[in-house]
């Protein structure tokens, strides 16, 4: 794989995940990183997504504190945020690199008023926001909700059926990025690169619940230049996250 040793995976998790059966431990993630030559992973505890973001963010900080190659990702559930002040106002100083939201898993939508309010409170942090989107119209509603947000937005969960929508919203706002975790259809990565540029595509695997070899295999076979591949594998994330 080109650029080996410099790969940054922006989409990983660790911890229990009842819907999956594969091992999701930090050790397993580290093992996969070594196997595939991944330099660094943005990661978070599944506890933050599934139950309690405070506990999850604590577990994420603890795991990332022990391994320099793990970059902490914070998460929040707008259904359970009631105050204008909270730990989420210190995400940046706590070392988090991204704030990630899971509307599908938590059953809310980008039009949800608490999410919009929370996004407004996060403006001062200026951390990139990463949102799992799925289903027709989800990316459009998300971008509408965050139209004036000053920080970069990373779309994840975009599969072949949503590529046209993702490209359309990315054309309207230059601060929108997409990760490759679900761009597994033949030609999908090239289509995005041709339409909005390689500099807005980030390598993400969804590991360890999804195979790291899959995301890497698709990117390896994408009909793009080696320079573009290198940007996607790590250069873009390095620039975006200030690594």
């Amino acid at each position: 794989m080109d650029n080996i040793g410099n790969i940054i995976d922006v989409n990983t998790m660790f911890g229990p995940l009842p819907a999956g059966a594969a091992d999701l431990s930090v050790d397993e993630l580290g093992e996969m990183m070594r196997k595939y030559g991944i330099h660094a992973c943005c990661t978070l505890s599944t506890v933050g997504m599934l139950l309690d973001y405070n506990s999850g963010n604590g577990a994420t900080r603890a795991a990332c504190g022990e391994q320099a190659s793990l970059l902490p990702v914070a998460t929040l559930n707008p259904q359970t945020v009631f105050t204008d002040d909270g730990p989420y106002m210190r995400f940046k100083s706590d070392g988090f690199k991204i704030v990630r939201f899971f509307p599908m898993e938590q059953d809310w939508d980008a039009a949800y008023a608490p999410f919009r309010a929370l996004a407004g409170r996060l403006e001062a942090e200026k951390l990139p926001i990463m949102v799992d989107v799925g289903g027709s119209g989800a990316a459009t509603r998300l971008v509408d909700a965050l139209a004036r947000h000053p920080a970069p937005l990373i779309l994840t969960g975009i599969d072949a059926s949503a590529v046209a929508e993702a490209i359309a919203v990315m054309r309207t706002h230059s601060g929108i990025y997409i990760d490759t975790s679900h761009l597994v259809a033949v030609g999908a990565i090239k289509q995005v690169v041709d339409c909005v540029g390689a500099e807005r595509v980030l390598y993400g695997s969804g590991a360890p619940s999804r195979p790291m070899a899959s995301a890497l295999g698709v990117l390896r076979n994408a009909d793009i230049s080696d320079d573009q591949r290198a940007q996607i594998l790590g250069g873009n994330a390095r620039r975006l996250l200030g690594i």
Partner: protein
Amino acid sequence: MPVFDTHSYFGGSVIPGVANSAKTIAATMQARGVGGAIVFSAHARYVDPLSGNRLLAKILEQSPILHGCLVTHVNRVDASVAAMRELMASKRFVGMAITGMGEEEPVEKIIADDIINAYRRYGKPLFLYAHNGKMTHAALEIAQAYNMIKVVLFGMGGHDWRTAIAAAHASTNIYLETSGPLDRAKIPAAFETIGAHRIVFGSGAPHVDAAAAMGLVEDSPLTDDVRRRIYYTNAGRLLGLDPGE
């Protein structure tokens, strides 16, 4: 290691220029080390069985590494049987799939009987879509009723892959095809329950790149011998081919 993809399509991609000819399909396969594939006509699946399968027959003539699977529809029995009579005797068509009212809807035995009874004489495998638990249960009923036919479950039950594994355990004429969710747990679980000899590699290309589907096999804790069986030995035996060629 040779790879045979038991599940790919001619047409149907949302990405322009992808899988729209024998040349593009073969080039995509070869770039990923896939030596042979079964191809289904997206036109036959989504529009019209008769004309779609005829289009596929023309595509197969243009590349020796492509094999065909006839696509039939429970709402088009006459057209399906006509396509069967026209094309199924060809060695290039290695099986038949039955589609129903929707991609996520089960094909019930009671409405598939006419097509299956017309198909039995060819002695080739039957491919049934199993994207969820309901579809898998319906496929199991068919497999148990027609136990002389080898039945391949496409998509391995989707997120309900445990149901598909249980179905294959219950009916030994069922084969599991590995496409569907890229869940790292499902292939090891299938191997543990039914062994390696009834699992066949499939991608669903171009909707899922064969490279992504191969990544699922590569990341699963399997021996090289088991991977070899999944990638091509089992398909060769099932289809009466040497898929390594």
